[in-house]
């Protein structure tokens, strides 16, 4: 009888644990799709449009729920920031500026929609290299490539050196990439086609770091070989 009771307890525990796990999985909010379009009209300005789809139970939290967060670089200005729902209706938002970050909050009592878009412009007095992306506080779903970033340059411009994230360039103007999670910034080094030189390709971060790493490994292997003889 004791054996039956023990078995019963174990089975009950397993069932309850399974139900809790399944229940928890269904209640978790996840990022389903994130598509960011970054258009660099000039080397000092970019327009960004981000479409966000979220699945799971939406939150209505107090204080006001956070829609997204952007990195605030000191020499940049973020203008014309607005958020729309899937019907094109503007959502009531509050923009809070803190050190290093710009937080976009939905007005209190409002529900974060399952799909919405964030649009803004970024300008800089000097060349714009780092374009902040709207980061949402929602983990991505397990599907690979939930995040897509598309970049468009001006017709006479080209990206030199290594970009972040690494882009696949369809032509000199249009690039795209797919990732599993949202980067907080897109890094592009844009130049006029006529101004590109061989030095731009030789002295970029990717080339330098690759040479340094392999050089170090080869030298240390050679030293080890000499000492072990």
């Amino acid at each position: 009888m004791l054996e039956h009771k023990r078995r019963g307890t174990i089975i009950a525990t397993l069932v309850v644990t399974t139900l809790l796990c399944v229940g928890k999985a269904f209640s978790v909010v996840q990022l389903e799709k994130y598509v960011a379009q970054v258009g660099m009209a000039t080397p000092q300005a970019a327009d960004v449009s981000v479409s966000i789809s979220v699945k799971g139970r939406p939150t209505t939290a107090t204080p006001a729920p956070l829609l997204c967060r952007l990195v605030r670089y000191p020499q940049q200005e973020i203008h014309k920031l607005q958020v729309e729902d899937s019907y094109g209706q503007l959502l009531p938002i509050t923009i809070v500026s803190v050190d290093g970050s710009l937080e976009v909050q939905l007005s209190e009592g409002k529900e974060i929609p399952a799909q919405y878009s964030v649009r803004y412009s970024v300008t800089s007095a000097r060349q714009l290299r780092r374009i902040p992306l709207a980061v949402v506080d929602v983990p991505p779903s397990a599907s690979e490539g939930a995040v897509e970033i598309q970049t468009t340059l001006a017709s006479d411009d080209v990206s030199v050196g290594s970009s972040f994230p690494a882009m696949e360039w369809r032509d000199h103007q249009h690039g795209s990439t797919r990732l599993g999670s949202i980067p907080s910034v897109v890094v592009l080094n844009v130049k006029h086609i006529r101004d590109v030189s061989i030095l731009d390709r030789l002295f970029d971060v990717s080339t330098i770091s690759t040479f340094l790493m392999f050089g170090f490994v080869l030298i240390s292997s050679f030293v080890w070989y000499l000492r072990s003889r």
Partner: protein
Amino acid sequence: MTSLSLHFIIVAGVYFLVVLAIGVVGLRKTKTEEDFLTAGRSIGPWVGGAVLAATQISAGTLVGTVGRHYATGVSWVWVWPGVWTGWLISAVFVGPKLREYGVVTIPDYLAVRFRSETARVLSAIFIICAYMILLVAQYQACGVVLESIFGIPPLWAMCILSASTLLYTTLGGVRSSSYIDFLQIMIVVSGLVLSVPVLLHNFGSLSLAGQFLHAQDPRLTGAWYNGKQLFGYSLAFGLAIAAAPYEMVRFNSMRDKATVRNAIGFCFFLQALIGSCVLMMGLLTRALFPNVSSADQASSTMALHVLPPLVGSLFMVALLSAIMSNVNSILLVASAGISHDLYGHVINKQATEKVKLLINRISIVVLSLAPIWFALRRYSDVQSIVVLQTRFIASFFFIPMILGLNSKGGNSATVISSMLGGVLGCLAWSIWSNTHPTNIDAVEVGIVSSAVLFFVVRSISARKIALSAERSSSAGA
């Protein structure tokens, strides 16, 4: 399959060809069981130091600690002083003295020091169990990494890890793995050191990264853990390092006491460098990718999307190599527990060298497959599994090793009660504190109970011996 995949395949192919070549050379030079387990005691200080660092730096550091810094920020860095204290204790109180005993395994040492074959059996069984837990962490990390690169199911990744580690572990034992560890640590160090400026270049500024992290969660740049919690974690790591069988067995392959001390010094320097880089990697990856789906993916996300393709590939190869190195060390120690201690000293004392070597290699195969089942279930994140294992190792081994090497007296009852009392105290407190959270870490309870039992049983035993000596002398008189 990602764009990194082709680069990774080429880099990994070259690397594993080198590993295979070293394994074959090791096989030719390995004739006896002692050769297999101690490399003929020929390893010098530079390779020795790199080996010690490579043995410790594994998935727990490159996946687990990076992920922990990613998830909790700066405060986890305070665990490193505990690790370094563990190395210092090892350098002064453990390593050189253990080397003098000239034993092959840690259960060997306990059997000799405390004149107890029961202690040998118990410690061998415990090593096998505890290191199976550590293997689960390594396999789980490997599953996460290869799934990120190739999109392959974790089961395949774990089978690949098992097969490739088996190859050079069974071929050459400690001799070949020592030289592979040196190569691997050089790749890890260069990858880590280079990743920091690349991460910084992409984000733009360290101070801005700090502000952005603070905006996400103030605890990331402040105190995620309280002092008591950090002390508990630090203690677990430090004491486990000081008495870690899979580290101590590496001392046996070094030339002499002085070599052990110098090797630990070099290892110390490497760890300081690695610890700093891992901290920066975790924090800057969080700044660049604030929402990865799990903290364990932080390092593979960084390698895939931040580092240049060849550098990222080499880093991932080094990461997998670190996992393999750790798995290799663990398998060597655990299999030696079976072949040398349980089989050679208990089951069949007349076993020949050839038979013991064969048993060793069969054990390695079996032990490498067992953790796969647990790893597929992902009970917890990598760092939490490693912390669990360090608590048990510290509670079981630290007091008997430290006091055994640095004090006199004690017998079979002393060491057995100390080992069992330590691990049972740790286990009981871990279970109890799940429902009754306290500020006392399970490892503190384990160490205290181990120490108390050691001293109490030792003094009782000493008294009994003194009494029986008195009776004998008065009977003789």
